[in-house]
């Protein structure tokens, strides 16, 4: 499928956050993780848009929403290439490339059904063991997983 020219499709937002350079196909995952509820947040999602740098990319524009440090870390795990842009009155006020954290507390679900975090009511914890591509190790059961095989808690 040929990527669609972005300019034709996505309007600017007045205030809020633009997440650009998302790995193609990951925008919906990010929207899920950010727990965006359409009635409260006007949101535009561009999927498989043309990008000179990346070939194809996704983009997310969210009105009236600033991201926390924690949320930016989660985005880095899903799409390490993402750029997070804060917008106020149509002007870019901040541009960030979120970093992959060393540890991830209570954001992921351990895929191992026999892990203690899936048996007892305790928060999960993962250590990032590889960064490109990202893989994580469960602090409890010590199993290692590629990030795409791990579900996020919503």
């Amino acid at each position, binding site marked *: 499928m040929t990527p669609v020219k972005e300019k034709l499709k996505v309007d600017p937002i007045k205030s809020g956050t633009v997440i650009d350079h998302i790995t193609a196909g990951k925008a919906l995952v990010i929207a899920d993780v950010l727990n965006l509820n359409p009635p409260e947040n006007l949101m535009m999602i561009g999927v498989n848009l043309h990008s000179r740098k990346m070939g194809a990319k996704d983009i997310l524009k969210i009105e009236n929403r600033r991201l926390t440090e924690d949320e930016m870390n989660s985005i880095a795990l899903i799409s390490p290439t993402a750029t997070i842009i804060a917008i106020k009155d149509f002007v870019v006020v901040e541009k960030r490339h979120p970093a992959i954290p060393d540890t991830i507390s209570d954001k992921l679900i351990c895929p*191992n059904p*026999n*892990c*203690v*975090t899936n*048996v*007892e*009511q*305790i928060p999960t914890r993962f250590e990032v063991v590889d960064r490109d591509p990202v893989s994580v190790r*469960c*602090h*409890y*059961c*010590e*199993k*290692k997983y590629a990030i795409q095989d791990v579900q996020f808690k919503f």
Partner: protein
Amino acid sequence: MQNLVSMRQVNKDEILRLIDLAAQIEQGKIKPDLSGKLGALLFFEPSTRTLFSFDTAIKRMGGNSIVMAGAGSTSVKKGESLADTLMTINQYADFIVMRHKVEGAARLATEVVDIPVINAGDGTNQHPTQAMLDLYSIFKTQGTLQNLTIAMIGDLRLGRTVHSLAQALSEFNPTFYFASPGHLQMPRYIKDELRAKNVRFEEVEDIKPIIPKLDVMYVTRIQKERFAVLEDYEKVKDAYIITPDVLTRVKDNFVLMHPLPRVNEITTDVDKERYAYYFQQARNGVFMRQAIISQLLQLV
């Protein structure tokens, strides 16, 4: 060291220190005094051998134990959380030895109690005291852990012992041969770790050609209880059977190890051979567990 949960957190120096301590305890040069101390042996999953080994280690040092064998009759069955059970035991005992079928249970224990925790096996994850007693046995028979050629045979996928042992030995420039039936191969994450540390290893089907090269052969049982379908177990259970005929061309220093219990993977006529080491290996376990308890309780 405050707890012993995973071999991942035991470095080369600590391994050698524990081996030295176990040797000194075995030789009677050090006599750790555990009198007045109480160890809680919490075996949520049944085990005779490991439980007895720990209990023997505790009693040899003059300590006492309280034992829970199987969770069937306890409050765990009534729906109590693991954390609550452990926090209660924390009020009674000086240290906890714990086996649990859930992976990560011992790690959780270290986060809810303030007394030392020893992992005696958590599901298919870790069994560090077994790895330590295996290392002690290898050291005793070979005089070193460095530059050895070791074959691991049997269930390498689900057998946690071989995972911990391979990880621990990878610090000592080993050469590994892995032989396992069908889908019971060494997991990829272990092989990735070995590759990352430049450890030489080869997966082989036929073990005959490698036997003259070996310093140690480590055989594990195909664990029936870890198969969901009995037919799958029947298909692979006899894949590698070690008899005296298999081991005719071995080196003088060669030893045959097994974590026990064995079923039929080593025939009983091997037991009388010079290289059959598995029962001494079990005996070494008591000295190593004495060393580990002494270290964690700072008795030495």
